[in-house]
């Protein structure tokens, strides 16, 4: 199985462990908040708080499932800069491996939202002329993200070709 998604003759570079911590935190916080809104509304409006209890129980189940997958999902991410292209892999259930030739990159973006900044993380997104490409590497240390961006931009220029 592994060989389908292995990088050719290279080692995957992995994401920062902080990304896992961030995902654990969001998994713990986000579902309870989202589920609490309907739970409270139902409880207040109908007075049947047992329905709210069910909703909260569902939230707990989702949190547990997400936590069970966080480490595997974090570990499933990998990227590698080859001579002519960048490979990115991720996915636990639905796996994918994408290869983007440097010559095809039109835009390399470094993004960092407030939560990512709090964890000292940034993500790198690559755009080609194809909307399907959708190549993104989350959870990189900012230094690595800017290094990757500069490197990819440089390689992109060196390999650039028209459409």
């Amino acid at each position, binding site marked *: 199985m592994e060989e*389908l998604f292995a990088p050719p003759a290279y080692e995957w570079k992995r994401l920062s462990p902080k990304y896992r911590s961030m995902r654990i935190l969001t998994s713990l916080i986000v579902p309870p908040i989202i589920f609490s809104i309907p739970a409270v509304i139902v409880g207040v409006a109908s007075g049947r708080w047992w329905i709210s209890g069910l909703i909260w129980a569902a939230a707990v189940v989702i949190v547990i499932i997400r936590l069970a997958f966080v480490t595997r999902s974090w570990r499933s991410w990998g990227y590698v800069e080859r001579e002519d292209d960048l490979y990115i892999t991720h996915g636990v259930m639905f*796996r994918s491996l994408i290869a983007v*030739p440097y010559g095809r990159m039109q835009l390399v973006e470094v993004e960092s939202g407030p939560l990512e900044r709090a964890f000292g993380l940034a993500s790198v997104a690559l755009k080609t002329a194809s909307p*399907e490409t959708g190549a993104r590497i989350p959870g990189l240390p900012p230094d690595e993200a800017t290094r990757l961006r500069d490197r990819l931009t440089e390689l992109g220029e060196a390999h650039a070709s*028209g459409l």
Partner: protein
Amino acid sequence: MSASQPQRTSAPESSTGSHTDATPEPALTVGPPKPTERPHPLTPFVRGWLVFVAIAIGWGREIVSSAGENQFEARGLLWILPVLAIVVLLAGIAGFISWYFTRFVIDDEELRIDTGAIFKKSTKIPFERLQSVDIVQPLAARIFGLAELRLDAGNSTTKLRYLTRSKASRFRDYLLTRAHGHQASIRDLDQQLVAGAFTDLGAGDHPLVQVSPQRLIASFLLSTEWLIPTAISIIILVSTVAFGVLPFALGALIPLLIGMLSLIWRRVIGMFNFTLAESPRGLRITRGLTNLTSQSVPINRVQGVKTSQSLLWRPLGWYRVDIDILGHADSDGENSESTASSVLLPVASLDEVQLALGRVLPGFDLDGIALYRSPKRARWLRWFDFWTLRYGWDDRTLITEHGWITHVRDTVPHAKTQSVRIEQGPLQRLLRLADVHIHTPRGPVNAVAHQLDNQIARELALSQLDRARAARVAERQHRAVEMVGSDDLQGEAELLARFGTSRDDILGFGGESEVFALDHDRVLRIYRGRHEAPQHTAAQLRSLYESWRAVEIGIELPLITDTGEYNGRFYSVDQRFSGRNFSSWLQSADIARRRPALISFLDATECLQRLPSPVPGFSRLIGDGAPQQFGTLGELLSNMLLGPLQASRSRLERDVPAVGEVWNRLHGELAQRAVAPAVVHGDVCPPNAYISQAPNGPVVTGIGDFSPHTLNADPLMDVAGAVIFLELEPYADAPADAAWLEAVAVERHGRDIAHWIDVYRRYYGFYFSNAYAVDPTLYAWCLRQLSR
């Protein structure tokens, strides 16, 4: 039209009104004020009418869809009429203001459109940036003999409306001429034929495919997209009527009916009288019953082709063809009746499809591509169409097929591949299957090789990247040549025509020349550039080949039968090699067939050593002052490296650590090499070799293209070259094959040649290092050789 205008002096359709004043108004751009003109004065009325129609349709739809719920009372709607009148009046006033402040210039120097009453806007489009110029005639405009000019440049579309039809088509012809880089004056275009109200074909246009109304309507009625909503509507109608609950179903039926109407509008009204024509400025499509659209197809922007066939079209042999065109971002396959469309042919027979594809993808051999099926176990996941899943490729394109109710075939030229993705879901993992997506720019083409075996999927994806890279490099070189100037292209086209061939017959191209097929025995080679060098080289090669004509070494050698110059382009007529190009053959062969062929390639390389050299001793056989003799191998090879190093020295100093040391070591080693000189081809690589079918399998039977690298030097140089240039081949296992071939060579010639192959790796690393600007792959290879 006032006499102060430089463009033309007569407007043939002046009966529809004359251009009032053309007083020069100060433009936003710097420079002396130029006479500008306004669009046709009827413009505001036409646009007002369009607003009226839009409102009427919008309201009509509202009324129809609300009719189901409450009782529809016509009298209650009377109050709408004055409101409508006011809206139309306001739109008319706005249209008048917009018309009054719109001025444009299309002359020999520029294309500029100034708009805006309060916020002035001046759009100036450089002629070269124009990608297509389309003419659209909405019904209202058509009645008045007016047309809209639609200018596509980059990602923006600029509309100029409305002009008289004759003026619009004249501007279109002029702008397309300029967009192709040809010099022309707008005054010269007066005599051309103009677009009519029913067709829009110029004098030079020659229709390739015309779709008759009968066929269009029949194909529409049989198309899956029409039959499915029709069947659903009938089922809903029958079942609800049977149970007497029809009003409840209206909510579902009405949107369905509206969808069907809009499908008729797009597929029948919009595609009516569809004509694909060849004009002197490329392909052109005209279509439409109410709105007549004329649209050019920019061939160099085609990113992929989708051929589809509805189930019921199959007995009739009909196909539909859509193309991805770069920049037509909104074209998701379904276009409104007047915008630029991705439809190349709404319905056509196989012959017509092949004719059109030959124009859109010139020089591609789509029928020669062997298609492979997905493995049988795919039926567990794609039980509905597993037998239709196919994929295949050659050295220029990749094809995928899928679908049963509508059979779809996507064709993507390698040079247009953006990125590649392998995907696998949990069920696929159980069955060891995976999908490979080949990404192309936005458009109807979506090439996915469905449900491949794990290993095949990975091979396909990785080798596709290599093929795409090779195709990009080739295209870039090709383009670099085309940049030389359109005059050269023109000259080349005339040269090709003189030999009765065309660009479609291109066999291959390299850094120095392009090769076209003439017939079974001969090819035409057109050298790049206009300078003397290629002519000189070809003359030297010709006499060298001539001197080998009587020598039998066991393989085919090149022969130049004629050289000449035409229109400033230098050409030669060469004998055609039998068999197929080895490089493209390698890409499609599996390992069991490749390995014996590679051995025969090594054999053929060794045959070259038997060629007699015209001069004794270490010498350079081609080039300025050749034959030029040298005392030792070391001196000859240092001399060979002088030129390339001059260009690449500063790059190498940056990219290779301790490059001086590598250089000194190479010279030290070359000084130690004791060998009797023999002819060295200098560029023995698969693209220069030819393979034919022999009784025991494919065998390399010819080596061509002796280059400016031809020497009388160490015969091992070609053996080393055959091994190490193989690494540059664009198929996935090329490096493994090269390592294997090196082992074979070492076994044949003894242990110590491994060392000399390494020495020549460094030599060639320096020799090709001046490729950094044109071929990054080759340059990266050079860096690897120098850093070993």
